C-alpha cells in the first residue's frame, strides 16, 4: 500500500445495519489522491443517473487523504461527497474540526454510508477492533449539534447533524467540533439516512515514507508560517473577518442581496472591530492548526462560542445591511447549532427581504432590521410555516415566488461573499465550478481582490486561465485533504512588505496578468516538489508530487465532476451567473455587469471542452477519466 493511507474503506449499510471493510484501491489513490477526488470517483461508479438525492440510492461518503492524521499545519480536514439535494449535481463540502483525525486514527480512509435507516441511529466505530455499532438515537434526535456532541463519548471524534439535517433543509451541513461541512446540503443527505452522528477513534499512527524529512521540514515550515503576514498575523489576529474592510473598499462585499458592493457600516462588522469589542479568545480552531483563524466570542444566553467567519458576516451582515456583530454572532451560532450553511442561509434571508421589499412575499423581514431573523432561522431548521419554503434555497424559492432576476445562485448554490463584478476571474470560477457558486473551489479572488498582489480584476487578461489553475489546485488540495488557506503562504513575506502603490508592485501585477500561457505552462511542469503541500505528499506517500502532477490530478477530478453533472442533466447553459450580476453595474465606470460571455468560450477552449462545455474525448483520455 502507498504510505500515508490507512488502506481501508468502511462501508456501512444503514438499512440492514451491516458493515464491511475493504481495501483501498491503490490505482484510484494514485489517480485521485483521496478526499474529494477519490470519493467523487466512487460516487460516479456507485450510482446510476438521476437518483433522488434524498432517497436511499444516494450514498454519503466521508473521505480523508494522505495528509490527514499528520501534524502538517491545516491538514485535519475531511471531505463529504454525495449527490447534492440543493443543486441536483455533484455535492461536496470540506470540514475542519477533528473528525478526519479520528478517521485516520481508526484506520479508515473512506467511510461510505448507503441506504437509509428506518429510525434515528448513530454509528460508533472502533477502528482498532474493526467494529461498527449502529445505536438507536431517539434520545439525540432533535438536539443541536453542540448538545449532540456533548452527549457523545469524549474520547472519540464526531461528525453530527442538527435539526436542519434531520428536517432535510437543502443547505444543511455536517458539524465536527465547531466547524461545518456546510455547502451543497450534505447534512440533509445524512438526515435522509436518519443518521444523527458518527463517532470514531483508534490508535493507528500515520505510516510515512520519510518521517524524518517530514518532521524536519514541517518544523521549519511552522516557523515560516508563524512569520507570514497572513497565516501568522492577519488570520491569527482577526480571523477571516479581517477581510471585511478590504472587500468593502474594493466594492465586492455583498450588500442588499448583491445589489451593491459597498456597505457604509462594514467597519462595525470587521475583524478589527471584533478583536476590539467582541473577542474573548481563540480556542475554536482545528486540531493541529497553528493558524488558529477561529475567533471566540460571547453570545448572550449561550456563553463562549465560535465567532462568525467572513462569509457569515458578508452574507448575514452586510448583505442584510445589519451592522450588528453581536447579532451576526448569535445567528452564526444558531446556524452552526441547528446545522446549516450560513452562506446559503444568508442569501436566502436576503432574497426573502428583497421579495418583501418588492411586495412579492410577506415574511416580516426587512433589510437593515434584525427583528424576526432569529425566529425565521429556527423556522427554517424545523421547516415550520414559511420557513419550509426558505429551507428549499434561493433557486426553488424564486421558482415559487418569482424574482429570478435577483436570485443569487449558480446551479442552485448561493454565491459566497465576493461580488464577481469586481473580481472577474472569481465570476468565471463561480459560473463553472461544478458544485455551483462557491469561492473555495479555487479562490481566484485572492489573486484579484483580497491578496497582497492582485491583478487588475476588471479586465479580461488571465481571467479564463486563472480559474482553471486555481480550480485544479483546489481539487488537489481538497483531496489531500488540506485547508485552502495553505495556499495563502505561496506569496512570500517580501511581497507583502512592498508598498502597494509602488512601481515595483505595479510591475509585478502587470507581469502576472500578462503571463497567460506562460502561467499555465509553468504550473504544469512535472518536476521536483517545491511547495510544502507537494513536499508533504512526497515525504508521506513516497510518490513524487510537483505542481504539474497536482494540476493534472486536479484537472482529472474537475473533469470527472463535470461528467457527473452532465450525466445528471446539466449543460453549458448552467455555466452562468445570476442576471443581476450579469446585467446590473455596481461600479461607477461600468455600464453593465460581469462580462462572462467574453470569457466562457476561452475558458472552455483552455479546458479542452467543446463549445457546449462538454469535455472532448481527447481531454478525457489525456486525463485518464473513465466514464
Amino acid at each position, binding site marked *: 500500500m502507498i504510505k500515508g493511507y490507512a488502506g481501508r474503506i468502511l462501508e456501512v449499510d444503514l438499512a440492514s445495519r451491516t458493515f464491511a471493510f475493504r481495501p483501498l484501491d491503490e490505482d484510484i489513490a494514485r489517480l485521485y489522491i483521496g478526499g474529494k477526488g477519490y470519493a467523487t470517483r466512487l460516487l460516479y461508479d456507485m450510482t446510476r443517473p438521476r437518483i433522488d438525492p434524498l432517497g436511499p440510492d444516494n450514498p454519503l461518503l466521508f473521505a480523508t487523504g494522505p495528509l490527514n492524521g499528520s501534524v502538517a499545519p491545516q491538514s485535519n480536514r475531511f471531505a463529504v461527497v454525495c449527490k447534492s439535494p440543493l443543486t441536483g449535481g455533484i455535492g461536496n463540502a470540506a470540514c475542519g474540526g477533528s473528525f478526519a483525525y479520528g478517521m485516520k486514527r481508526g484506520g479508515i480512509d473512506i467511510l461510505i454510508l448507503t441506504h437509509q435507516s428506518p429510525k434515528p441511529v448513530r454509528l460508533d466505530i472502533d477502528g482498532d477492533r474493526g467494529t461498527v455499532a449502529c445505536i438507536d438515537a431517539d434520545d439525540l434526535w432533535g438536539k443541536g449539534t453542540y448538545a449532540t456532541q456533548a452527549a457523545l463519548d469524549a474520547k472519540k471524534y464526531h461528525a453530527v447533524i442538527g435539526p436542519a439535517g434531520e428536517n432535510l433543509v437543502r443547505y444543511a451541513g455536517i458539524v465536527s467540533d465547531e466547524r461545518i461541512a456546510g455547502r451543497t446540503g450534505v447534512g440533509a443527505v445524512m438526515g435522509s439516512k436518519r443518521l444523527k452522528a458518527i463517532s470514531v477513534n483508534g490508535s493507528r499512527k500515520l505510516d510515512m515514507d520519510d518521517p524524518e524529512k517530514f518532521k524536519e521540514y514541517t518544523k521549519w515550515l511552522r516557523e515560516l508560517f508563524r512569520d507570514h*503576514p*497572513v*497565516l501568522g498575523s*492577519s*488570520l491569527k489576529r*482577526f480571523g*477571516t*473577518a*479581517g*477581510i471585511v*474592510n*478590504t*472587500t*468593502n*473598499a*474594493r*466594492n*465586492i462585499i455583498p450588500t442588499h442581496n448583491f445589489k451593491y*458592493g*459597498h456597505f457604509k457600516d462594514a*467597519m462595525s462588522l*470587521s*475583524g*478589527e*472591530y471584533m478583536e476590539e469589542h467582541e473577542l474573548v479568545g481563540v480556542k475554536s480552531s482545528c486540531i493541529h492548526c497553528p493558524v488558529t*483563524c477561529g475567533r471566540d466570542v460571547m453570545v448572550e444566553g449561550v456563553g463562549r462560542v465560535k465567532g462568525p467567519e*467572513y462569509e457569515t458576516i458578508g452574507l448575514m451582515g452586510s448583505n442584510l445591511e445589519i451592522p450588528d456583530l453581536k447579532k451576526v454572532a448569535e445567528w452564526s451560532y444558531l446556524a452552526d447549532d441547528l446545522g446549516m450553511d450560513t452562506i446559503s442561509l444568508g442569501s436566502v434571508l436576503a432574497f426573502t427581504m428583497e421579495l418583501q421589499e418588492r411586495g412579492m412575499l410577506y415574511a416580516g423581514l426587512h433589510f437593515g432590521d434584525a427583528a424576526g431573523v432569529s425566529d425565521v432561522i429556527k423556522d427554517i431548521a424545523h421547516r415550520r410555516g414559511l420557513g419550509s419554503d426558505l429551507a428549499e434555497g434561493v433557486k426553488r424559492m424564486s421558482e415559487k415566488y418569482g424574482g429570478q432576476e435577483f436570485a443569487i445562485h449558480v446551479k442552485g448554490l448561493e454565491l459566497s461573499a465576493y461580488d464577481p463584478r*469586481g473580481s472577474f476571474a472569481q465570476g468565471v470560477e463561480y459560473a463553472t465550478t461544478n458544485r455551483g457558486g462557491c469561492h473555495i473551489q479555487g479562490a481566484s479572488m*485572492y489573486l484579484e481582490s*483580497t*491578496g*497582497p498582489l*492582485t491583478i*487588475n*480584476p*476588471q479586465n479580461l487578461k488571465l481571467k479564463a486561465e486563472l480559474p482553471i489553475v486555481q480550480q485544479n489546485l483546489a481539487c488537489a488540495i481538497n483531496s489531500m485533504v488540506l485547508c485552502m*488557506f495553505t495556499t*495563502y503562504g505561496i506569496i512570500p513575506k517580501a511581497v*507583502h512588505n512592498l*508598498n*502597494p*502603490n509602488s512601481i515595483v*508592485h*505595479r510591475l509585478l*501585477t502587470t507581469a502576472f496578468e500578462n503571463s497567460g500561457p506562460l502561467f499555465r505552462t509553468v504550473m504544469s511542469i512535472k518536476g521536483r516538489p517545491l511547495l510544502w503541500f507537494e513536499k508533504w505528499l512526497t515525504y508521506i506517500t513516497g510518490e513524487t508530487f510537483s505542481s504539474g502532477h497536482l494540476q493534472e490530478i486536479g484537472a482529472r477530478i474537475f473533469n470527472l465532476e463535470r461528467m457527473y453533472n452532465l450525466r445528471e442533466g446539466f449543460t453549458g447553459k448552467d455555466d452562468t451567473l445570476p442576471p443581476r450580476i450579469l446585467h446590473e453595474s*455596481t*461600479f*461607477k*465606470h461600468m455600464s453593465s455587469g460581469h462580462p462572462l460571455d467574453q470569457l466562457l468560450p476561452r475558458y472552455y477552449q483552455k479546458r479542452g471542452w467543446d463549445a457546449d462545455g462538454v469535455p472532448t474525448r481527447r481531454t478525457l483520455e489525456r486525463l485518464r477519466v473513465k466514464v
Partner: protein
Amino acid sequence: MSITVEVTYDMSKALGVRSFAVDGVRTVQDVVRMTRDRFGPERGDAFETLTRVAAVSVNGVLINHRDGLRTALADGDTVTFLKAAAGG
C-alpha cells in the same frame, strides 16, 4: 468638486475619523496631499506611516490598476485607503 475619503480600521483609529469630504482636488495625489495636510501636524507621522502600507482605491478600483497617484477624480468619487491584503 467634492470627494469622499474613507479610511479603514487601523487608519480610522489613528486619525480619529472614518470618512470626510475634500473639495477642489483633481487627482489622487491631491487627495493624499490634502489628507496629509489635514492630519499631519496634529497626529505626527501616523498618516505618513499608514500610507506606506495602505493601498488606495477609487470607487473600489485600486489606483495601481489605473494611473497611480495621477488617477483623475470626478465629482462624487470615493477614495479609500485600505489594508492591502487579508486572508479570508
